[in-house]
């Protein structure tokens, strides 16, 4: 602990009361997990199936917790120092970039390791139940530790590039989701592909810690339509994680110098004042030039909505066009996929992929758009300025929500043509597609209102964004853990009750994805999402009213 950064970031954190409370809660959770599944009958099966089931669930739960909670700490670590002005002081101290990076890396890893250490007694209890080999326990923890290293180095690298803490959190969650889930999709989309493409796809899939964990616990080829893979995914993941950690760390260290501050203030170049040639080239590149002089806010337009679009980086028209273009390309790819693969995969298989992609898009984009609606204004002092204008609180909230609704609407519309092709191929699918569209709309509405409501409870954008992501990802990912434990240890009714809150599962059940056909989730899921959306809306209104009333 010679490194003062480790001392400041880890030891100080561990001394806080809330850290102690969280540790105790975590320990209680692990104890409960084992206590619930501890055998009560005098006789038990020698196969150790029961302890395997518990241990599997335990491992997936730990991995999910790491992927959901851990990214926030490294993502904000460097950028927060930069915005507070303390990074310049650190760089001006005798500490070198390696020590600064090392301190931050060790602090985050130390915190995660402590969480893993707390889980060891529960793992030992599973082992004591029998049916689990020491190698299983060691391999599971190896995957978890390497995931910690991978996510930490990734978060720290993103942090060196970010200007604000909330953008760092957003990008880190985006990258974590990409390596964990999206990296596995090509494998399922192009099953059986050989040659160089096939090798690349299998290596890409091995980057995901989820794939490694599934491979270790015997669910490696879930959804692979009977095709099994022979490569050692765990070994590949270990190699790739170590390599990626090393590369990301060196990359981040190379960025920790005064070049981070060596930039002039933006002089606000405007393209209207440039020559015709420059304007033409920029028009060809951007279509809608971000540097052009924008128009004045028109009548009957909510000024808060326009302001939200203008001051949000991705709200500018050229970015929206790019986003829609990307969604359009994805949609086109899905359409081609639907047309060419429906015969071999059936509509449900393709529909399942489309649902995953669309929900992933909603879950990734929406919290970053909606979580900071109120928190950012409060943090920057804009809320007081808005209050001193003639705008009512409801106009402000409506304008802010409208900016999210329009962006989400455009994104969702751009991904819908794939479904239309499915209906054209098989008109009987029209009913299912309608129900999927309702699922997506309900999901978008819920995620938006949930993010906005959770975000409004905080004063700082980064906390608001992190908590909104954590809540939304918990709703969308945690119930799937019950589905992984379907049959054993969880019965049909338990799994169905857990899945009823999950928008992805509802979409899967509607489109008849294998594994979800036996669960009747609609309209129960719609009722839940609708009810939860109303609660979130009321919470948002109450909180906005609370922060805007005179003290």
């Amino acid at each position, binding site marked *: 602990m010679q490194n003062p950064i480790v001392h400041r970031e880890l030891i100080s954190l561990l001394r806080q009361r809330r850290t102690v409370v969280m540790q105790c809660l975590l320990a209680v959770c692990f104890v409960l997990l084992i206590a619930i599944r501890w055998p009560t009958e005098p006789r038990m099966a020698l196969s150790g199936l029961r302890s395997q089931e518990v241990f599997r669930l335990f491992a997936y739960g730990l991995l999910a917790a790491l992927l959901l909670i851990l990214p926030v700490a490294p993502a904000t670590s460097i950028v927060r120092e930069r915005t507070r002005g303390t990074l310049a002081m650190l760089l001006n101290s005798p500490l070198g970039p390696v020590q600064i990076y090392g301190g931050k890396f060790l602090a985050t890893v130390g915190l995660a390791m402590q969480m893993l250490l707390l889980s060891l007694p529960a793992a030992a209890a599973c082992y004591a139940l029998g049916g689990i080999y020491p190698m299983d326990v060691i391999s599971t923890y190896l995957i978890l530790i390497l995931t910690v290293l991978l996510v930490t180095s990734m978060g720290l690298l993103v942090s060196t590039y970010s200007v*604000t803490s909330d953008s760092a959190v957003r990008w880190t969650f985006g990258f974590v989701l990409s390596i964990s889930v999206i990296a596995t999709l090509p494998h399922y989309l192009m099953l059986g592909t050989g040659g160089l493409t096939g090798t690349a796809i299998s290596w890409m899939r091995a980057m995901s810690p989820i794939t490694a964990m599934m491979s270790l616990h015997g669910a490696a080829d879930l959804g692979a339509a009977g095709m099994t893979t022979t490569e050692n995914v765990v070994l590949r993941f270990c190699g790739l994680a170590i390599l990626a950690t090393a590369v990301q760390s060196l990359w981040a260290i190379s960025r920790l110098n005064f070049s981070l501050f060596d930039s002039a*203030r*933006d*002089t*606000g*170049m*405007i393209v209207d004042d440039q020559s015709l040639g420059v304007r033409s080239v920029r028009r060809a590149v951007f279509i809608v030039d971000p540097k052009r*002089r*924008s128009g*004045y*806010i*028109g*009548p009957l*337009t909510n*000024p*808060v909505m*326009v*302001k939200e679009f*203008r*001051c*949000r*980086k991705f709200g*500018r028209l050229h970015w929206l066009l790019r986003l829609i273009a990307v969604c359009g390309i994805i949609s086109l790819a899905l359409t081609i996929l639907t047309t060419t693969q429906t015969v071999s995969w059936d509509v449900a298989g393709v529909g399942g992929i489309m649902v995953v992609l669309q929900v992933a898009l909603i879950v990734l984009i929406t919290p970053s758009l909606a979580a900071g609606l109120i928190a950012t204004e409060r943090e*920057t*002092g*804009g809320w*007081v*300025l*808005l*209050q*001193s*204008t*003639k*705008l009512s609180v409801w106009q402000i909230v409506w304008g802010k929500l409208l900016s999210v609704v329009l962006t989400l609407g455009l994104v969702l519309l751009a991904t819908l043509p794939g479904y239309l092709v499915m209906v054209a191929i098989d008109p009987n699918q029209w009913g299912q597609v309608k129900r999927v569209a309702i699922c997506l709309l309900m999901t978008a509405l819920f995620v938006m209102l949930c993010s906005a409501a959770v975000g409004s409870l905080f004063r700082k954008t980064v906390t608001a964004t992190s908590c909104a992501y954590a809540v939304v990802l918990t709703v969308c990912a945690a119930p799937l853990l019950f589905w992984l434990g379907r049959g054993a240890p969880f019965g049909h009714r338990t799994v169905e009750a857990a899945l009823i809150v999950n928008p992805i599962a509802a979409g899967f059940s509607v489109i008849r994805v294998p594994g979800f056909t036996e669960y009747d989730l609609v309209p129960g899921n719609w009722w839940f999402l609708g009810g939860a959306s109303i609660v979130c809306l009321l919470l948002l209104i109450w909180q906005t009213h609370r922060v805007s009333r*005179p*003290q």
Partner: protein
Amino acid sequence: MIRNLVKKYGDYTALDDLSLTLSKGQILGLIGPNGAGKTTTIKVLVGLSRPTSGTATISGVDCVNESKRIKQLVGYMPDKFGSYDNMRVREYLDFFGSAFQIPRSKRIGRIEEVMEMTGVTYMRDRYVDALSHGMAQKVGIARILLHDPEVLILDEPANGLDPQARIEMRDLLLQLARIGKTLLVTSHILPELSRICDQIAILTNGKLRACGTVKEIGRQVSQQRTVEVQLADEGSLSVAANIIKEIIPQEDVTESPAEAVIRFRTNRSEDALVQVLAALVKASIPVSQFRELQTDLEEAFMSFARSQKEVERAPSIAKAEA
């Protein structure tokens, strides 16, 4: 007009029976140490805080119950700028103009007008989050002028500005007063306030300690005035000092040979001073200037802050002695 304003947060009294009046077109400087109640006063005036008791009105409009009308009457610039990312100065002003429901056709011209008035036209295309502090303060003033309010309330407008920016800010505030705006300004930079304010109010611990012009406050601080007599040469310095001591004995008279100046503090009337000047002239003392020195605002402020500290310390000393 503020009358008997009281604001309590639990047991803590932020404003204690505060009463203030400001006439149209005047500049009132509100000064006081940190936690004196300056920002609380401002928040009550702009409708962001409800007083525990008392009233606050602007142009006859109640600040507490008629917040919509107050928004039209008042332009409020808080100490925090309230920047937005990726937004240019003109877009920023356009947004607030639209938020004040200024019609588009009128807004376009008004934005140009306020930018011209505050000298920010050249930075119209700059991003607001990339502005220097001085530039941001000017844009902040342009923002509050958009809806043409009668009263401008500025919380620490000169805070953190360099000398050049401070002079520009001072000129801007004087210009606004000249066009008929009523200004309420808080500041820690006291010389700035003494130069621009028609009235000064000193607050400590939520109480109004003094109110009036700088000169009046100076008198409230100390009943003794300092008078300076500037001679043409230092030769007759001691003769002049003796004449003064004869007319007003028991007063503190100091000589400064290097400056050829005599200073004395007195609580005598104007007649006594006339007598002194007449005696000096009669004795053929070459007097080039005879003037009363204004009490420095800083000195006045420190005097109130000191007396407040003494009041606070008194009970603890009494307790310790007991």
